[in-house]
């Protein structure tokens, strides 16, 4: 890729900087253990695609990373900072979690834009109220982001008047507005009509190209293979197989993954 050895080593060094590390993560709902010891590392600039069947624990894993679900046990380190946990896995320090959450922007399957606010208001909400960015600055930045996702002329629209694809693009702009160090996508295109999927994938592809760190739960195998540099296959709460997309998709080792891939394609 890089012609000079120096550039290559600088690039790999940069790429080695750890963004998210999950170690031996367990999560139970009541007596049902949904995650049975998951470990995963994403370095800066990585795009990690998480695939797996329904109920395999993909969403739960993603939601444990920003503590929307409290892990039962394990260790989560974000940008070198370990999230303090009590013995029972509950967060020991609410403020720490809140601070870390502002660096991990999440994009949801159901978009979850705030319906009582316009798109512009949605996007400046967190910068202005949580990060205390001056309003004028936040508005300028929000307009840039809206333009970037192709929604410049919709800043005064309310979410309910937009298509799913438009809402999801706005939700991505909202996530970008906090200038996150990593982004968590939970099936960002699963709630969309097929003809709207492309416009959202285009935006995500763009983010991958500019080196954003992303964890992406998806059922879009073709897309995962194209944008991810690492693919994780979850099966019943365990990582059954992981590796570079070329290996995972073209040369799967586990029988279950083979079956899964043939069932989704």
């Amino acid at each position: 890729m890089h012609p000079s050895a120096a550039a290559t080593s600088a690039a790999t060094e940069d790429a080695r900087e750890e963004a998210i590390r999950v170690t031996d993560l367990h999560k139970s709902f009541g007596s049902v253990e949904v995650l049975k010891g998951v470990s995963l590392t994403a370095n800066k600039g990585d795009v990690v695609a998480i695939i797996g069947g329904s109920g395999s624990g993909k969403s739960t894993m993603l939601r444990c990373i920003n503590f929307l679900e409290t892990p039962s046990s394990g260790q989560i380190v974000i940008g070198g900072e370990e999230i303090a946990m009590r013995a029972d896995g509950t967060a020991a320090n609410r403020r720490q979690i809140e601070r870390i959450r502002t660096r991990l922007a999440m994009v949801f399957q159901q978009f979850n834009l705030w319906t009582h606010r316009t798109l512009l208001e949605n996007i400046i909400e967190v910068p202005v109220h949580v990060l205390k960015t001056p309003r004028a600055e936040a508005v300028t930045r929000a307009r840039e982001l809206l333009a970037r996702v192709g929604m410049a002329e919709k800043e005064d629209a309310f979410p309910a008047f937009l298509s799913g694809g438009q809402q999801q693009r706005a939700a991505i702009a909202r996530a970008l507005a906090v200038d996150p160090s990593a982004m968590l996508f939970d099936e960002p295109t699963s709630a969309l009509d097929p003809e709207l999927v492309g416009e959202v994938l285009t935006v995500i592809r763009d983010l991958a190209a500019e080196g954003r760190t992303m964890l992406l739960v998806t059922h879009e195998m073709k897309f995962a293979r194209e944008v991810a540099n690492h693919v994780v296959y979850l099966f019943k709460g365990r990582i059954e197989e992981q590796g570079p997309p070329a290996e995972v998709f073209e040369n799967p080792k586990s029988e279950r993954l083979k079956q899964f891939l043939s069932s989704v394609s």
Partner: protein
Amino acid sequence: MLGLGESAQLLSLSSPGWGANLLRGLANSLQIAFGAFGLGLLIGLLGAYGKLYGGKVTRDLLAIYTTVIRAVPELVLILILYYVGTDVINRIAAMMGYGRVEISGVVAGIWVLGIVQGAYSTEILRGAIQSVPPGQLEAARSFGMPPLMVMRRVTIPAMMSFAVPGLANLWLIATKDTALLAVVGFNELTLETKQAASSTRAYFTFFLAAGGLYLMVTLCSGVVFGWVEKWARRGQPSLKGAR
């Protein structure tokens, strides 16, 4: 029946007429209704959050509160709360070495009706909070909003559209419940009307006038709540044509 001219004279604002008394009564009624409605909202918000997120004891106590208040007739509640309340305050004052405390009618009225309103508010707001799609709160939390900010910036504005129709009803009930305070001798509109009517024997004129005033309040409230509802529903597509 009195003639129009005579009625006008009786209702006139200046001396021989009783109009000023009626308006003063109305002002008192509105003051209490406002205060009670506001206090009720505050109790309701705390009560709703307590019922939804509180511990077992909190939830049980709130269940008793809302059940009892909504089961007992308002008039009885007013008598109980008023006499028990003033008695308790006086006892406490006596214990601390003060003499009898003069309790202002407005303050007492606001407390008594506020506690009644709080029970209904609790239920209205609890239902409204539960109607907010959980994803909206989750999104707020996922961006690092602390709980109170989630409540202020997301839950409360998002629940308004569900709460406003119920709260509008509750406000109208508040304005009319002030009339019940006449039984404890508070000079709100109904008692002022009764006094004017019995002094002049012009019952029909005065009660018709009072009825007119209550109707005016209702009509104005309707307009105001119409605006509020329109604001609260911003961002939601109209249901018209979506059958």
